[in-house]
């Protein structure tokens, strides 16, 4: 028992535990919208895009990294949405160009001006070391912001996710709602980046939401379940990372994957049927436009 409580005596671990739990909850919560819209690839791409801004701010103005990388992330998200919507370039191609270029810029900046030491590795795979009170503060701010937006725009977000064309003609400003979703996603990735890591954030957007979908047919319950699963994975994963001595992001994702396997085994065909099509990158006919 003492061994289990041992890590809690360290302040850095206490902070890490808080951040990991809230990060898991936040990514699980917003992941519901990302998964149901078939936008898992955007979460993956955006985390890489934000790495460019993160690298630049770490090297030149580390104390302003939330602001700088946040603006970078939001700009990337809006650029992806805009390019995919207005040009003939498909969403996949737009993400491929915007996000990998930004990721490459981050790698180049670290290689040219910094080192490929802890900062680089931490950004890629997550770390509980060096979590500051400011990071916890910004995580709480973004979590509260996301919660308030989803609470007050619940039906509009749900309608836009389910049937954007009809939502649009029913008075929902779908363009603005989608942009809001992108902003929330960017900010969520940004404030969870240091614990989960660039390469693993996308997994925590997807895994809790897919697990929740396998367990329920209700949208509201899916939001709650995904949040609970995400926070549980964050909590247990962070704890396990201490004992296993592996990066926190990897352990959190592994815990999520184990929960997925357990739920898959428990729900069987029913769970698979519910989650069918969630991994599709192809847009539904409603989003493609039918003539």
């Amino acid at each position, binding site marked *: 028992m003492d061994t289990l409580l041992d890590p809690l005596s360290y302040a850095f671990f206490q902070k890490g535990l808080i951040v990991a739990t809230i990060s898991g909850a936040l990514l699980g919560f917003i992941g519901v919208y990302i998964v149901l819209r078939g936008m898992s690839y955007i979460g993956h791409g955006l985390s890489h895009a934000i790495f460019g801004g993160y690298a630049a701010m770490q090297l030149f103005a580390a104390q302003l990294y939330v602001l700088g990388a946040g603006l970078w992330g939001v700009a990337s998200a809006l650029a992806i949405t805009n390019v995919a919507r207005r040009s003939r370039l498909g969403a996949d191609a737009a993400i491929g160009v915007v996000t990998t270029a930004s990721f490459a810029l981050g790698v180049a900046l670290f290689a040219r001006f910094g080192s490929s030491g802890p900062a680089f590795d931490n950004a890629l795979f997550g770390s509980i070391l060096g979590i500051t009170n400011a990071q916890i503060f910004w995580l709480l701010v973004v979590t509260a912001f996301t919660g308030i937006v989803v609470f007050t725009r619940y039906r509009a977000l*749900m309608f836009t996710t*389910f049937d954007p*064309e009809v*939502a649009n*003609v029913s008075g929902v400003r779908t363009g603005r709602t989608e942009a809001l979703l992108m902003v929330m996603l960017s900010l969520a990735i940004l404030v969870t980046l240091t614990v989960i890591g660039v390469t693993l954030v996308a997994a925590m957007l997807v895994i809790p939401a897919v697990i929740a979908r396998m367990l329920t047919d209700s949208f509201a319950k899916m939001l709650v379940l995904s949040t609970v699963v995400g926070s549980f994975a964050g909590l247990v994963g962070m704890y396990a990372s201490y004992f296993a001595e592996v990066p926190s992001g990897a352990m959190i994702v592994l815990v999520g994957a184990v929960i997925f396997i357990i739920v898959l085994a428990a729900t069987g065909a029913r769970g698979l049927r519910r989650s069918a099509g969630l991994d599709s990158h192809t847009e539904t*006919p409603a989003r493609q436009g039918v*003539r």
Partner: protein
Amino acid sequence: MPSTLSDSTARVAHVSSPLISLRSVDAGYRNSTVLHDVTLSVSRDSFTGIVGPSGAGKTTLLRLLLGSMKPQRGVIDRAARLPVSYVPQLETVDWNFPATVSECVLMSRAARRVPWASRAERGEVAAVLDRLGIGDLGERHIRELSGGQQQRMFLARALIRKPQLLLLDEPTSGVDISTRHAVLHLLADLHADGMGIVLTTHDLNGIAAHLPHLVCVNKHIVAEGTPEEVITPDVLEETFGAQMEVLQHLGMLVVVDPGGPRRMVS
């Protein structure tokens, strides 16, 4: 059925001014133009079927009326703050989406700032579902509905907005004959209550022949008028690009495709 639709139309006074008017409109997607030189008016008196083959521009015309698409050329006049509801094709929707029938209907009330339904909203949802004959399905997942029930759920979602104009894209596509009859009767009742209705269809015998007003479309408006005026071999050939015969049977128009498959008789 035809007498019911005619009766419902007769009960509506033909005095309404146009809700939406299209004048010399061209429309399409990016660099291609799907519809050319369309002039059309829709009012609360309208109970109109837009008829044409696949790719003729029926859905594009519906989108112009909806306001979800801007014309490449021409003018669209629309009544100020016009409440319009839209019922999409069933096959364009992800039926695996985690939502119950009631949740889906309440999506139309997207302006509400809290997630849960008010007591008044719950009453409205129950009333509209009852009217459409699916009052006991409110808590059922949308995937578990039959085609006819899915269509009624979309109608409920449209009606809860109390529209003056209801637009439907292939409302009877993929449903059985009895459901098709039920949907048509329901639309006739709504029209009798003073709601303008415009729907697209390529079903000439099952739908179009029973409507009071038709618009035949194939990249442009080929003809417009009552079924007796537009369901003619010449208009149908120009609209569908195939020769068809038009017969009278018990006072009904019946379109026969002589080029269609025949049963082999030895």
